[in-house]
């Protein structure tokens, strides 16, 4: 079978040879024809010059063309092209024609007369490059491969026909034959390039023979290891030497590739691996001197790595340990990798500006393969960390060297490699028992330090990558922190310590980094209010340290004092911000401190904390608030941002007062909140915080707003919590009464005692405090006082509002509210009082009595208000914006004068009498009511009242006739009738006596 293959190959080879031969002959014939044409062309030119000398003299350029053609045939094409352009402007030359022209040749048929020749695809750069690559490289590679394949086939044949030694001899002879062919071809210019490939093939074939003699079963004839080693080394050496001698990186790569491939065929042991490393080493060293063989470097390092991993894999798949001792293998990998890396530190690379892609990637790949090779031998030894750490310094040192050699891309690459190695070193610390959190903290620290170092020289690319790595490391740290919070176990104190370290380092280096970034106008850009700001974003992790530290501290139960650390971090940030003004820092501080505050408040409010920790958090956050207030200058807004500090202080005070008092007395919280409100009211008026002092812009407004917010917080708490507090203070007074009075006092304080604020918002809020006071007071009365007493209180309220409204112009809208109280009181008397039942026989407990007293007070108010009507009409009511509509109500009251007071009163009294007393005496009471109205009509000279009273009496009379007469109790009937009769008589008398008063009025 193999023989048939061999015959097939021979036939194929013969056919190929005959084809090639025919082709060469055809090319030679063409060449001969061209030579003939050229010589005839030369003769014609001479004739033409002799016969038409005058014409030719005037067309000298054409002469030059001919001369050029004559002098250098090899550059014929170029010269012809030049002539093409020149002939365009030379019509006489067009007449020139070669007298001897072979009809089959294509040369004379060239289109010289084309005026605008089109550039074909074949003339494009792409096509030319393709041609160069194909003709220059691919053919060589494919050709060599073909030869190698042929040798393999030959080997197969030899394997069949000969013994191993004989086979080796055939291979060697074939190799020598090829080498001899090289000598033969190398002297011929046309075949020079091919000869190099032939020589390469001879080397590879020899190598195959050597490898086969040692390790391939059918070719193996050497059993002595030393002879085998010598043979292998000689094969590899020959191969590599030839690769080196050929002088191109493609040759070198191919030879290294075949050398390593060959080594993959032999049994693996320490020696063969060492040889493989040596081959790779030599392969890399080939590129030294002035060569820039980066592609070769990439190929070699990748090949070596692939071989390395192939061996590891093949052993692992057989459940065998890799036979090479780790240290040995590591050293070899280090040698290969280091050689690859060092190969770039040569003068040939220096001076290049910008990033050179191929060398850069070659270097990166070398670093990566070195890392991978070493990682493959990592057994978790602590020494790996040491080596990694050493490599950090080494790579960093190398980057300095690259910088000095002005190899920018190498400098970038080594700097980044050192960063990566540093991070890997940190990750390897896990072997020392460090937790994931501690490792990420150290990584963040390392990234910070690296950023600081990078900032020193400030290379844009490295800085941006380092900055990104820095931010990423902090993102990981943040993720770890949240991860720790989810765990049930408590966190080690060392974690917080690590965070503190990272904060300190970051705080220390941040000013420098920021300064450098600003100087170089680098970093990331963010836009605020359509303005772009360059920033490193280092501010964000810096500002968030306090927050994360506090989160961690919540999981550390060793000591409460640990809480001081996060607070100190937060405080330090404010000092740092004073030093470094930056818009992003301003925002970061706001966010970071805000988050810290949120956590602190949640902790204070939580039940799991001790008193000490609550105290530490409260005091700490108060200090944060004070500092935030004092150190709040914003360069961008050109003012102090005081609202944040005020908010912190207020929130902490409010929460702390709740937490610290809730276990003492629930009522205490509300009282303290009111005290905060009062203190804020007094503080806002202090000169230091007033708007006239530009340093604390609007701080008085914020203090005022939070003072009011405290008051509203109290009110909310009061109605949701304190109102149901039934505890007695001093054994007799409900404690909530203190809160109620103090609350009303505080509202009054803001309404009247506190100095008016310059803030419009504050002013508008306070404007409604009068209404708030009335609402709260009414609610308290409704809740605290027994309902049967309410009518008296509403009636008293009517008077109180009227007098206060008269006395104080600022609150003169109370005059209107007095009317509302008046009507409310009457409604209550008419409809509500009469439904109130008290299980008591005591007169003072009776609802009707209270109703009666209320009626009396309301009557007094009616008289008083009527007498004071002019004063009321003149008053300009001071109404807040949204209740301006009440002025219409005032006009309505003015218009109706006393009627609006009197009719509701008498109607209410009528109902009150109806539902409060026995119906048998009702007629008597109603008559009395009408009689009183009648008297009033005389006193006030109001005929309308008189008419109403008369009509009323008439109706009552009808009731007496149709209802009271049907009653069974004669005594009652008698009393009613007599009384009514007497009243009517009295009315008649009085009317007659005083009727002139009506007339005079009319």
């Amino acid at each position, binding site marked *: 079978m193999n023989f048939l293959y061999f015959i097939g190959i021979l036939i194929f080879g013969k056919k190929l040879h005959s084809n090639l031969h025919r082709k060469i002959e055809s090319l030679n014939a063409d060449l001969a024809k061209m030579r003939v044409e050229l010589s005839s062309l030369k003769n014609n030119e001479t004739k033409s010059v002799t016969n038409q000398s005058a014409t030719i003299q005037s067309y000298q350029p054409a002469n030059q063309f001919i001369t050029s053609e004559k002098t250098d045939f090899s550059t014929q094409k170029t010269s012809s092209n030049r002539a093409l352009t020149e002939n365009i402007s030379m019509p006489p030359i067009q007449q020139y024609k070669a007298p001897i022209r072979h009809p089959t040749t294509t040369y004379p048929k060239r289109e010289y007369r084309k005026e605008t020749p089109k550039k074909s695809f074949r003339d494009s750069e792409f096509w030319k490059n393709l041609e160069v690559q194909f003709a220059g490289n691919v053919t060589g590679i494919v050709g060599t491969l073909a030869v190698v394949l042929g040798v393999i086939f030959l080997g197969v044949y030899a394997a069949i026909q000969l013994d191993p030694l004989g086979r080796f001899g055939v291979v060697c002879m074939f190799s020598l034959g090829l080498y001899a062919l090289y000598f033969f071809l190398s002297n011929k210019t046309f075949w020079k390039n091919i000869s190099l490939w032939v020589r390469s093939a001879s080397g590879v074939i020899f190598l195959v023979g050597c490898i086969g003699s040692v390790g391939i079963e059918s070719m193996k004839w050497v059993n002595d290891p030393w002879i085998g080693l010598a043979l292998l080394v000689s094969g590899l050496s020959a191969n590599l030497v030839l690769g080196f001698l050929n002088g191109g990186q493609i040759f070198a790569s191919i030879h290294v590739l075949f050398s390593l491939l060959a080594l993959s065929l032999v049994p693996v042991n320490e020696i063969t691996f060492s040889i493989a490393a040596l081959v790779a080493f030599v392969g890399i060293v080939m590129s030294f001197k002035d060569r820039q063989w980066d592609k070769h470097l990439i190929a070699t390092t990748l090949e070596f790595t692939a071989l390395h991993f192939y061996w590891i894999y093949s052993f692992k798949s057989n459940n065998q340990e890799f036979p090479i001792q780790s240290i040995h293998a590591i050293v070899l990998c280090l040698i290969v990798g280091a050689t690859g890396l060092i190969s770039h530190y040569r003068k040939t690379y220096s001076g290049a500006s910008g990033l050179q892609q191929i060398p850069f990637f070659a270097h990166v790949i070398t670093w990566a393969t070195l890392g991978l090779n070493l990682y493959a031998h990592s057994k978790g030894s602590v020494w790996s960390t040491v080596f990694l750490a050493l490599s950090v310094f080494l790579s960093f040192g190398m980057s300095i060297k690259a910088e000095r050699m002005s190899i920018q891309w190498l400098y970038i690459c080594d700097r980044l490699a050192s960063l990566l190695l540093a991070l890997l070193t940190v990750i390897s610390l896990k072997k020392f028992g460090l937790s994931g959190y501690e490792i990420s903290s150290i990584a963040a620290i390392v990234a910070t330090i690296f950023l600081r170092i990078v900032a020193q020289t400030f290379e844009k690319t490295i800085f941006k990558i380092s900055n990104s790595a820095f931010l990423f490391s902090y993102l990981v740290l943040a993720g770890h922190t949240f991860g720790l919070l989810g765990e049930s176990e408590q966190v080690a104190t060392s974690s917080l310590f690590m965070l503190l370290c990272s904060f300190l380092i970051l705080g220390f280096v941040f000013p420098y980094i920021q300064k450098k970034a600003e100087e170089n106008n680098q970093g990331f850009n963010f836009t605020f209010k359509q303005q772009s700001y360059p920033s490193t974003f280092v501010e964000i992790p810096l500002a968030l340290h306090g927050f994360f530290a506090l989160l961690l501290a919540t999981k550390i139960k060793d000591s409460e004092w640990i809480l001081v650390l996060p607070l100190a971090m937060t405080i330090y940030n404010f000092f740092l911000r004073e030093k470094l003004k930056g818009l992003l820092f301003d925002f970061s501080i706001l966010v970071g401190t805000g988050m810290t505050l949120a956590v602190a408040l949640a902790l204070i409010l939580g039940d799991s904390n001790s008193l000490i920790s609550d105290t530490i958090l409260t005091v700490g956050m108060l200090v944060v608030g004070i500092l935030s207030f004092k150190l709040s200058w914003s360069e961008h807004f050109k003012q102090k941002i005081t609202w944040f500090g005020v908010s912190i202080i207020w929130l902490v005070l409010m929460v702390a007062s709740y937490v610290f*008092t809730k276990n003492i007395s629930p009522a205490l919280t509300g009282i303290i909140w009111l005290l905060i409100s*009062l203190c804020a009211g007094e503080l806002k008026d202090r000169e230091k915080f007033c708007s006239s002092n530009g340093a604390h812009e609007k701080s008085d407004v914020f203090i005022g707003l939070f003072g009011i917010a405290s008051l509203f917080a109290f009110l909310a708490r009061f109605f949701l919590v*304190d109102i*149901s507090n039934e505890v007695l203070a001093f054994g007799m007074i409900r404690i909530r009464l203190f809160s109620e*009075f103090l609350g009303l*006092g505080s509202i009054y*304080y803001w309404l009247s005692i506190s100095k008016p604020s310059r803030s419009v918002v504050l002013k508008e809020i306070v404007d409604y405090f009068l209404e708030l006071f009335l609402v709260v007071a009414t609610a308290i009365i409704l809740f605290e006082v027994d309902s049967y007493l309410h009518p008296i209180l509403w009636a008293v309220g009517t008077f109180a509002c009227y007098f206060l409204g008269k006395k104080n112009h600022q609150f003169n809208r109370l005059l209107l509210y007095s009317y509302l109280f008046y009507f409310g009181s009457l409604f209550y008397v008419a409809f509500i009082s009469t*439904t109130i039942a008290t299980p008591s026989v005591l007169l003072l407990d009776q609802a009707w009595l209270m109703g009666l007293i209320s009626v009396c007070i309301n009557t007094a108010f009616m008289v008083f208000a009527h007498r004071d009507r002019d004063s009321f009409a003149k008053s300009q009511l001071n109404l807040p914006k949204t209740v301006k509509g009440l002025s219409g109500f005032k006009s309505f009251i003015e218009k109706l004068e006393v009627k609006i007071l009197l009719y509701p009163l008498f109607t209410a009294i009528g109902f009150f009498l109806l539902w409060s007393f026995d119906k048998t005496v009702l007629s008597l009471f109603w008559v009395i009511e009408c009689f009183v109205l009648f008297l009033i009509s005389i006193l006030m000279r109001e005929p309308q009242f008189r008419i109403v009273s008369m009509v009323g009496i008439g109706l009552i009379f009808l009731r007496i006739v149709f209802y009271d007469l049907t009653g069974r109790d004669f005594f009652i009937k008698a009393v009613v009738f007599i009384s009514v009769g007497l009243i009517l008589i009295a009315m008649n008398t009085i009317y007659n006596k005083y009727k002139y008063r009506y007339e005079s009025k009319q």
Partner: protein
Amino acid sequence: MNQNNNRTRKFFIILLFGFAGLSIVAALTTIDLSQNNGVTFAPLFQLLGKAPQSLSRSVTKMLPIDSVDEGELGKNLRSYDSSSRALNTDEQKALTYLNSIIKRLQRFKTKPFDYELRLLSADIPNAMALPGGVIVVTMGLLKAVKSESELVAVIAHEMGHVELSHCFDSVKYEILSKKITHNSLGAIADFSRNLLIRHTFSKTQEDEADNYGFQLLTNSEYDPAAMSKVFIRLKASSHQTGNSPNPLRDYFLSHPPLDQRIAKFSTEAQVWWNGRSNEKRYIGIKNLEEKTDLSIKDFGEGEWTSTYIAP
């Protein structure tokens, strides 16, 4: 003038801060952690419920019906209840006992009809008032309360509902429609009203009834502290929970939270007892056990108290 204003201002500020200081001192004297002052919307709804309740009352007042009509409805209810089922001996005894109590309490009534107690053989401790002076008490309540004074507190509370026209208010349209012979229309109107707006002031009505009951106790021979004790018993049997703030739950609560009622009436009783060193009030544990009314038998000194006994 300005100087005067400043003086007034300073005086008021000093007064306010002084009062704040006094309030703090007062609060510090009230370290009573037994009172759980959680957030509850119930008192607020109770307060807000006064407005719709007043409106409802006014409407009732304007209708051409009164307590006499309510008494007529009560008569019908009594006749219906009497025909329902026969009572056993214990129940009969208990009913007699209850009616003897209500007979004594009727001296406080203002309605023009008599009260009558009915017994329901349910184990749940409960009581309810019907229009026209019918009060229904369950056997479970008789087992839950520990003294006659506590039982009186419950009956007084239910009397309060009748006296304060809460029952009348809830059936006013039915009463009215009976007058104009359109029964079903009135019932529908009442049902709709109770369904839609009753819960807005039901807590207010319950609070009023509580107050009425407490006042009745103070004006009777019984210990006013019985009111809070009853609520403690009810709380023990109802297992009422829910200290977390929940506006919706608090809005739909028919009664104020028991904790709040206990705290309120404990304090009320304490205040009442504070100024009455010579007063003596009856508890009546044995009376309840033997189902014998105080008017029939006074069980002696052991049943009387002259001080406030905390529940």
